[in-house]
């Protein structure tokens, strides 16, 4: 019994990684084409700000400002319009949990 449990746990651990694709809401991985998801010193400097260390409510708030054109933007105003408020919240919550 103990061995079976251990095997089940091992399988779960093995697949912990696969949960990450399903875990990210649609569109979340689009952010990382431009914004770093890591605060590691190895990440080269970039004029585009990293998205680590920001609480979900802050990220979602900024995205809503982009969407309502209340915040100056280059591309983000046009991108934010492609997501509903619920989608923005889900992505913001996911982003707030990341730091690779």
């Amino acid at each position, binding site marked *: 019994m103990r061995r079976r449990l251990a095997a*089940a746990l091992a*399988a*779960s651990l*093995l*697949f*912990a*990684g*696969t*949960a*990450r*694709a*399903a*875990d*990210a809401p*649609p*569109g979340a*991985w*689009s952010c*990382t*084409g*431009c*914004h*770093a998801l890591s605060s590691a010193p190895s*990440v*080269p400097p*970039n*004029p*585009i700000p990293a998205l680590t260390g920001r609480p979900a409510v802050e990220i979602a708030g900024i995205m809503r400002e982009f969407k309502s054109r209340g915040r100056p933007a*280059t*591309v983000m105003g*046009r*991108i*934010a*319009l*492609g*997501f509903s408020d619920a*989608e923005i919240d889900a992505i913001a919550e996911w982003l707030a949990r990341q730091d690779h």
Partner: protein
Amino acid sequence: MSTRRRTFLGLTAAALAAPALVRAQGAAKVVVVGGGFGGATCARFLKRFAPALAVTLVERQKTYTACPFSNEVIAGLRPLERQQFGYDGLARSGVTVATTAATAVDPAARTVMLADGTRLAYDRLVVAPGIDFDWTALPGYDEKAAERLPHAWKAGAQTLLLRRQLEAMRDGGLVVIAVPAPPYRCPPAPYERASQIAWYLKNSKPRSKVLVLDAKDSFSQQPLFRRAWSDLYPDLIEWVPLSQGGNVTSVDPATLTLETDFDSHKADVANVIPPQKAGALARLAGVADRTGWCPVEPTAFESTLQPGIHVLGDAALAGAMPKAASSANAQGKACAAAIADRLAGRPPQAPRLVSGCYTLAAPDYGFSLVGVYRPDKGELREVPGAGGASPLDSDPVLRAQEARYAEGWFRATTGEIFG
């Protein structure tokens, strides 16, 4: 439902689905052929999403030379080395990198033959073969002619050849760029190239001229380009649309002459961008249709012609998405997520993809076209109301900011893929 409960159920479901992924003979196998923006992204993210997968990336070249920003190399603003990336980062992430060519695909047996004689079995095959030129489409223009009239539409030696020709040209010379009818790789790139060459000429050979001979009557972000040309290069660039005789019907490599319906243009430097089709591997795998391109479904980018084979990037007919590096990057991630989900017995979720294409009309003058896409009625369509081009009336500060962000995008994306 609490997050913890959801995670627990997710893990249980994944554990139950284990036989689909880890099978008697070992981990499920995914082979990715083509190590550009689409293929390399997909390989990298397959290992990220499903570390237990055996992922092999098959790529002929040891070093990848990226096309975005290669127009700046032609203008002399950037060394080619900044366009080049190796595959060590992918190898470190657990991807098996096979530096060889794929020579045949057997979709029924689910195997790929490699030039070194290896036969790779796969559960899922991803092909991202980029483009090939149609060397039969333009009389006078073949592979040999391209040594005299470079296309520079695959970055590398051809990029440097065009650069050298511009450097050697006399002041007062005529540079002709021949642009094909769509579809071709990166719709705005011919006009960015005209801008970048004009930047070089304005600064180094100001009596020279750029003539763009176009096989169509309108082009991507045309008002933005026209504004940039009148702001930066008045009278230096002339664009001839199809309806005014822009279609190049033949070229003579010996005299550097380009014939159109109405005229004959003798160039000092001629950049001929030939008509294109999906890379050769697409035909080997049986995923290209009569158009020369590869139809796919919009969630996992699986071929509609060959189940089990996915097609990414410029080779794919990806609905409204442009043939561009950022599209290929977005598709690579979506395809990796869908494959990881399917092999774990989960239905893939409908993706939301974002593409962003930056243009540099000068080092400090950038603008962009973005799109947000989702599967809708069986194909990728733009989310209504989102996306679009930079505003036409924009101050220089914003244009300079977009130029900096363009470089930021390139650094972030290539870092994510190859770093």
